[in-house]
């Protein structure tokens, strides 16, 4: 079983979980995805998971690039279908620890159907959804999580749609662990991820992150540091809050915390049990 080894003083402690030949990464100055990566790396260490058995699957987008920087078995697949791909991996080899790290547009827009079905089936995997309220990689288009009235390159008059509430979707589809943290709250995010890694079933952790170039600049919100200051002043921890109340409006209060932590048998547990009971 391989875990993070003690590394010498001259090297950053996370370097043996990163593909150092590809660092520096492509994310902008002030982008919060790097913080989701540090939280994930620290969580893997904390949860004492065998590194040989972790598989990271991601989709397309800025957050989708996370798979390419992690020194683990990783797959960078098509837009929106990371969860479906990960379902195949998990069901074919249940010993693997499958983590899907992808963005809000990838997981909830084009991948929305796969998200709710995997939650319904309770496939044993951890989904880390980095929510920056925009489609960043392709140039800042409006996303299903963009708050009402916010500007983007395809909502130049302000967004006309109400956004999705990701913990609510996850909860109502049957996810067993649902949490939301801002990337400023790295330690609590790390704890949530490591709890989810050790939990059986479909876990969703939403990490609210600044998009320092598109969302924040188009909406005159400053730079990454200004958005972090906003999260600092406007996020409120309410564990166990009903997920119906977790909507995020434009520059409104963000409720964070661990909302759902329950037990349900996973897909494979029920499948194997029924197969055994079956009289052919």
């Amino acid at each position, binding site marked *: 079983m391989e875990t993070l080894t003690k590394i010498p003083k001259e090297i950053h402690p996370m370097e043996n979980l990163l593909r150092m030949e590809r660092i520096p990464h492509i994310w902008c100055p002030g982008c919060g995805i790097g913080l989701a990566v540090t939280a994930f790396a620290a969580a893997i260490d904390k949860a004492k998971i065998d590194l040989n058995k972790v598989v990271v699957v991601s989709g397309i987008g800025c957050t989708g690039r996370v798979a390419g920087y992690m020194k683990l078995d*990783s797959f960078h697949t098509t837009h929106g279908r990371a969860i479906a791909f990960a379902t195949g991996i998990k069901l074919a080899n249940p010993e693997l620890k499958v983590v899907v790290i992808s963005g809000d547009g990838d997981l909830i827009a084009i991948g929305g159907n796969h998200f709710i079905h995997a939650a319904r089936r309770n496939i044993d995997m951890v989904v880390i959804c980095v929510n920056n309220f925009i489609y960043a990689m392709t140039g800042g288009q409006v996303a299903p999580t963009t708050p009402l009235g916010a500007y983007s390159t395809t909502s130049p008059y302000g967004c006309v749609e109400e956004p999705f509430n990701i913990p609510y979707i996850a909860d109502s589809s049957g996810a067993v662990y649902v949490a939301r943290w801002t990337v400023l709250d790295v330690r609590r995010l790390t704890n949530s991820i490591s709890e989810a890694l050790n939990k059986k079933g479909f876990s969703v952790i939403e990490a609210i992150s600044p998009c320092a170039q598109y969302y924040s600049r188009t909406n005159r919100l400053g730079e990454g540091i200004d958005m972090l200051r906003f999260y600092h002043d406007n996020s409120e921890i309410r564990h166990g809050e009903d997920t119906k109340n977790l909507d995020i409006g434009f520059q409104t209060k963000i409720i964070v915390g661990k909302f759902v932590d329950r037990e349900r048998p996973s897909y494979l547990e029920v499948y194997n049990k029924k197969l055994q009971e079956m009289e052919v």
Partner: protein
Amino acid sequence: MNESNKNLLSGKYLLSCAEACVEGAFIAGCRFLAGYPIVPALNIYHHYLKRAKDLGATYVQMEDEISALAAVLGASWTGKKSMTATAGPGFSLMMEHFGLGVMLETPCVIVNVQHIGPGPGMPTAPFQGDIMQSRWGSHGDYETIVLAPSSAQEMFNFTIKAFNFSEHYRVPVVVLSDADLADEKEEVIVPELEKIEIESRRYYDGPKEKYLPYKREADFVPLMVDTGKGYKFHVTGLTHDERGYPVMNEECQEFNVHPLVWKIRKNADKIINFTEVKTDDADVIVITYGLGYRTCLSVVEQLRAEGIRVGLLKLNAIWPFPEKRIYEIAKKVKGIVVMEMNCGQVVYEVERIAGGATNVLFTLQSINEADTTQNLISAINHALKINGVKDKIIGLNDLMSAGD
């Protein structure tokens, strides 16, 4: 898997095409099926589920065909042979992931039980019209392998062959069937397991830290590893280099994409497969595939009895297309009649390859057997009567521009 082998079939059975397909898949080692219900392909799922317990096989019904093929690709990367089965509209949905499977070089088998289209069409009637789609359906440059059985025995054999090809060349392979073929029960002889040739994927066995996911062997196919074994590799659907990392420039595009084409084209001779009946001295040769074979065979027998020198070439592997042989034939016959159960797809390939060396006629295989036979006989007779080579496909059913 070894333990479940005792539950595999061996001997003579009465199986439908769907059952033969599933039994062939199990013998080839397939233990994962992800699918989405679509009418002509349902019997494959039912039979698979019936046998799943004995063979320790996993089934998941996904929420659409897009995720079905994605799950199959994911499962394949864990080392398990995987397949899916679908029909026209589902096959269209799978196109993006077909491209991903080609780009990631993932072995898997897709059974396309074709039904009438375009659009939702007629799910319960037979049709053989996804020939071009199975070759060109996804975007970008790639080559593919497509097999077309004509009977339950061939379905059994070709499914095993499809798994072998997909594991050897690391490419998704399509097996074409249709709604009629799927349900007819015929005799299938299953040889003993030891006598069946089953290919496994070629694994890399060097030091883990030196593994390069896309370093190619002499036949342009890279060696594979399973996920979860400590290789810590990264693969991406973006244009990538040997290390599997995305590198977005033109040199990398050529480096990465051209071998996807070469690995099939340069090994085409090992994949191309066709059956010839009485072609040595034929004046007219009929080319067909799939369900049309039986009609053509009976017509050929009938006309031969009348003294007309007609032969038959049945395509077993439609892609890669048997260009050399078709060109040889075109140079020595008076005409080639292509019978298809669609408005003309393979006929264009034949015309292109014949290159003007002979007349190419097209005849439609319609649902009505009597019409089909009549049309075929007229086409063959017409081919024998034509003087000189015409410069376009000759059709006698108003589907192509009519001949003289």
